[in-house]
């Protein structure tokens, strides 16, 4: 048996032959493109043949001195912080709720999970109809209950657009937090609660002393993962507002897209993309560090 195992693990040719296609694909689709972005960021590329003169760090200088970059950075911060914090609080609340036993739990879970499964374009269409100034149900409902007396411009006013987009983002992505947290809640040993009950702990005390400490590592990891994903989310904002009105919802990924495919300034777009990736890299590093630490603890 041992000999076969050594033979199994040592078959170099087969090992490399089976892995090769994956390596080739990932190198061509992710590795080379990432390097290309750095080259592009040093060029002054417009439309046409997709090449242009080298300009050194000019595009980075432009980005770091332009107002639009900092506006986008600030918008990204608001978008990420707003979305993730609400998603996590809501996610924990609903995970606690779904962790209880009740009659229609399967159905409730399916409905609460649904937004995460629905294609983004569907979510956007539905919400844009609901947010519509005149025929939208949200304005109609708020007017009927007397909370407002004239329709709000949910997506077309600079002050409200970001709030509206965050609302849709939260609705679409909070189920991820629910699923992640539900998984860990169900892993808490029930004996701990029974022991606490015997000792006379109230349910509030049980939550603070048992549930929360147990859930915290997964909670933080999920929050970080959501931060990374929310950070480079593109289509939900693009489809809701296109980055507008003016630049009220232009986050960094939107800015990259608009620079490249509306202004046709590929060099500048690449520079912004790299700066975005740099910030994201810090978050990714943090994520892998936390994963390592969690694995080490196990």
């Amino acid at each position, binding site marked *: 048996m041992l000999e076969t195992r050594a033979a199994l693990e*040592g078959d170099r040719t*087969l*090992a490399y032959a089976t892995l090769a296609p*994956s390596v080739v694909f990932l190198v061509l689709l992710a590795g080379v*493109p990432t390097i290309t972005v750095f080259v592009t960021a040093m060029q002054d590329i417009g439309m046409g043949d*997709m090449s242009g003169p080298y300009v050194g760090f000019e595009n980075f200088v432009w980005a770091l001195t332009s107002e639009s970059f900092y506006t986008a950075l600030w918008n990204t911060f608001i978008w990420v912080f707003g979305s993730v914090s609400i998603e996590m609080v809501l996610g924990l609340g609903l995970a606690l709720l779904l962790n209880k036993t009740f009659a229609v739990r399967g159905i*409730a879970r399916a409905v609460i999970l649904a937004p995460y499964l629905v294609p983004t374009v569907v979510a956007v269409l539905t919400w844009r109809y609901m947010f519509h100034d005149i025929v939208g149900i949200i304005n109609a409902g708020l007017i009927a209950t007397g909370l407002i007396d004239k329709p709000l411009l949910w997506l077309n006013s600079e002050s409200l657009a970001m709030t509206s987009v965050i609302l849709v983002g939260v609705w679409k992505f909070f189920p991820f937090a629910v699923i992640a947290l539900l998984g860990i809640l169900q892993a808490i040993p029930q004996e701990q609660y029974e022991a606490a009950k015997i000792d006379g702990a109230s349910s509030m005390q049980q939550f603070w002393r048992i549930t929360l400490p147990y859930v915290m590592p997964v909670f933080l990891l999920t929050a970080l*993962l959501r931060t990374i994903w929310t950070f480079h989310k*593109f*289509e939900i904002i693009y489809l809701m507002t296109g980055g507008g009105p003016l630049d009220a919802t232009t986050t960094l990924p939107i800015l990259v897209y608009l620079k490249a495919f509306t202004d046709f300034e590929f060099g500048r777009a690449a520079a912004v993309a790299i700066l975005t990736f740099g910030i994201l890299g810090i978050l990714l590093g943090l994520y892998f560090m936390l994963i390592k630490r969690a694995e080490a603890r196990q």
Partner: protein
Amino acid sequence: MTSATLSVASAAERPRRNYEMADVHHLASRMMLYLLVFTAVSVVGFPLFWMVLCSFKPGGELYATPPTFLPQEWTLQNYRDLFVQTNFPTYFANSLIVAGGATLLSLVIGGLGAYSLSRFKFFGIAAFSNAALVCYMLPEVLIVLPLYIYVVKLGLADTLIALIIANTAFTLPLALWFMRSYFNAIPVSLEESAMIDGCTRLQAMYRVTIPLALPGIVSVGVFAFNHAWNEFLFALVFTSSERNKTLPLGLATWIGQDNIYSWGMLLAGAVLVTIPVVLFYLLVQRKLVVGLSEGGAKGE
């Protein structure tokens, strides 16, 4: 001795005396629970409920202020218009080709790669798996710029092939990571036995390992399909002609043109795009919840 017996007896009686109080308390907390569940489900579920409901409303009702709640007249007109007046069927077919192609490609290539990562020990294996995970986390907007440049240079702009290949940039790492863990769960000894019985290595893989990993492979396929089915940015950047549009791109270009495309038609389209996703969910429901909660890193 007697005092001990007594204290046991009174301890047994105490809960019975509190029984009624506890019962009322219990009932109140149950009602609270159901109230919370009802609120959560109706708030979260409302947009989708509204989408389905409004897709059956005739034009007049869709633009009524204040809007009607239930359709006063149920109609399939929006669905009919979608098929008669628009290229919806073309978009649907394109999406099937792109998502199907990307899924097949990542299952075959990723399956082989995952088998290698799971069964062999060689230099650089950990580095490669981590690199694959980083690929999965790369922002789409970063990748789309160089990919667009290549696509234009290779003359692949506005083709479905470009979309299929670009989509595997994200579905392949997903397939690698998931399938590696599925293969890891299958004991190597099973393959060894098959080989002692005279199978070659590839036969052992084909006859033993793959059939055992099939449920996992199916759910990876569903994830990959779903990812490519929803993909928007690559489609937006690579596609220029009407006949190569995928569903998300097709529907997205109708938004904001409500003088041509009515909300009813858009919502009907949204319902139809969602149906395959719902079917897939039903197919892999259990796997999905387990997979998402076990490895957050591989979720989206």
